[in-house]
């Protein structure tokens, strides 16, 4: 098992290295660089040259990449070319914001989704089941930006004004404000993700309920609730965790659309900003962080899978 884990970690490191090379190469294929973008329409050839020299952008590509790798292994992620602040601090703040949103959404999804899925499995084939499946189905099929804008329209319009239309409030401004800014984007994400969890839980619980040993327990007089809680859920947890892990990966890097709709300052918008400004140090850290979350979440899911199901053994 440990050998497997070590091998996985090694391949993760390789994957991340590959990601950083691709990002570096790709950004340098794009027209313009950080210097031309900072100067914008005030650019003159000499101003650009001077700025490039100052930023170290006139060195050969390999040298630039090597020096970046060199500082990263010592823990120095460099300074953002566009924002002129340490990259690590910027990314940490945005990551924290994305994490809040992801956790808020996942929490609600788990709290709401697992009971809903169980309910649907218990009442399989009946109207309740149909309603739940249809609703979640529609939820996952509507693009996030449509869902988000619709929620905005209904709950944040000036006449209703329950929630702010966008943005983010620091915890320091008060928990109330912070929470209120999280609600609409989290709700949007929840609606999109519910379907996965509900479906997994539903089929997992349904499978267990149909198993012979459950029927035997029922015949012996065990209550449905007991059966569900003791057996069905435990086994449905497996695939649910996998889905959660995948969702986490999606949430940390892919929810840029929701961030855009609600002007939420998360990782997605930061990546866009970094590409638009050819801000290589910032972009590298963003790409690696997002990729890491994805692969580590998958890895954690695989480990959890093995731990929960003794039948699975990795060599």
């Amino acid at each position, binding site marked *: 098992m440990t050998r497997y884990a070590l091998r996985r970690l090694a*391949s993760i490191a*390789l*994957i*991340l290295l*590959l*990601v950083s090379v*691709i*990002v570096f190469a*790709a*950004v340098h*294929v*794009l*027209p313009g660089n950080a210097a031309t973008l900072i100067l914008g329409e005030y650019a003159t050839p000499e101003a650009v040259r001077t700025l490039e020299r100052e930023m170290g952008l006139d060195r050969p590509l390999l040298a630039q990449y090597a020096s970046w790798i060199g500082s990263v292994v010592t823990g120095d992620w460099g300074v953002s070319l566009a924002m002129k602040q340490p990259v690590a601090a910027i990314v940490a703040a945005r990551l924290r914001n994305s994490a809040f949103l992801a956790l808020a959404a996942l929490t609600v999804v788990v709290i709401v989704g697992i009971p809903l899925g169980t309910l649907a499995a218990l009442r399989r084939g009946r109207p309740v089941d149909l309603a739940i499946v249809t609703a979640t*189905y*529609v939820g*996952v*099929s*509507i*693009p*996030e*930006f*449509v869902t988000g*804008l*619709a929620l*905005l*329209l209904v709950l944040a*319009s*000036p006449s209703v004004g329950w929630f702010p239309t966008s943005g983010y409030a620091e915890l320091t401004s008060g928990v109330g404000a912070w929470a209120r800014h999280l609600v609409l984007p989290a709700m949007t994400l929840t609606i999109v993700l519910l379907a996965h969890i509900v479906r997994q839980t539903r089929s997992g619980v349904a499978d267990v309920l149909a198993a012979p040993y459950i029927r035997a327990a029922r015949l012996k007089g065990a209550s449905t609730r007991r059966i569900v809680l003791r057996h069905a859920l435990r086994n449905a947890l497996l695939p649910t965790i996998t889905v959660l892990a995948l969702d986490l990966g999606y949430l940390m*890097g*892919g929810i*840029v*659309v929701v961030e*855009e*709709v609600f002007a939420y300052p998360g990782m*997605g918008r930061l*990546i*866009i900003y970094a*590409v*638009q400004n050819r801000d290589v140090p910032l*972009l590298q850290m*963003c*790409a690696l962080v*997002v*990729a890491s979350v*994805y*692969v580590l979440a998958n890895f954690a899911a695989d480990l959890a899978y093995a731990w929960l199901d003794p039948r699975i053994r990795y060599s």
Partner: protein
Amino acid sequence: MMWRSPTLAVGGTILIAVITMSIAAPWIVPYPTTEQHMLDRLKPPGARFVLGTDQYGRDLLSRTLAGARPALGLGLGAVALGLALGVPIGLAAGYVGGRVDDLVMRVVDAMLAFPSLLLALLIITALGASTGHALLAIGVANAPGVARIVRSASLALREAEFVLAARVRGERHLYVMFGEIFPNVLAPVIVEATLRVGFAIMAGASLSFLGLGVQPPTADWGLMIREARQYVFLSPWPLLVPGTALAVTIVAFNLFGDGLRDRLGAT
């Protein structure tokens, strides 16, 4: 027949309607899609403009009908590209196995870990924002996932009797891959493809929403919603009309794909 499955029936019917509308759009639109009626901006549904107008006074019904084509084209095209790239890779990896399989899958894993937003952003920034480049970006992003699925299926079939028989017969590898194995992985691939079209359409609309896809003044659902955003409290229609069209189309593809999966008893 096929229609015994309700999801298949419902999904299929809606799809046929959407596809018909997209083909017929140029002939059935009440107004040219870029024609502006400045004095009738942001009007709700009424006699002259059945579903209302947008911020330049353009008819929402016409634009939404016209938007079906780029959406469908992009969805189908992106998935086709993903298949064209992913199927051969997956087949080869699963068939050849061993070191090659390991290496290829490692690269595929790296591609899967690469943030898809970033991938799309880089491609589109390099080449310029347009439907074609959005299609390329989504297709490329889809390929690793397809490769994975095809590889698993192909791996399972490697030792199958009919494959061994073909090898013994002396058939060349390429034929075995595409002639023997591929037809048998077709079912899960088709199901997967149909499901992916819905999400490709969603991805395309998201890219347009972010300003990375179709550009103004083309009629495109994602772009229409992007432009509608600023005025959403002045008139909800520029958001609701294309939004509903988008939702209905994606739901239809998902229903159809799910129905197909149940029907074919695959994956």
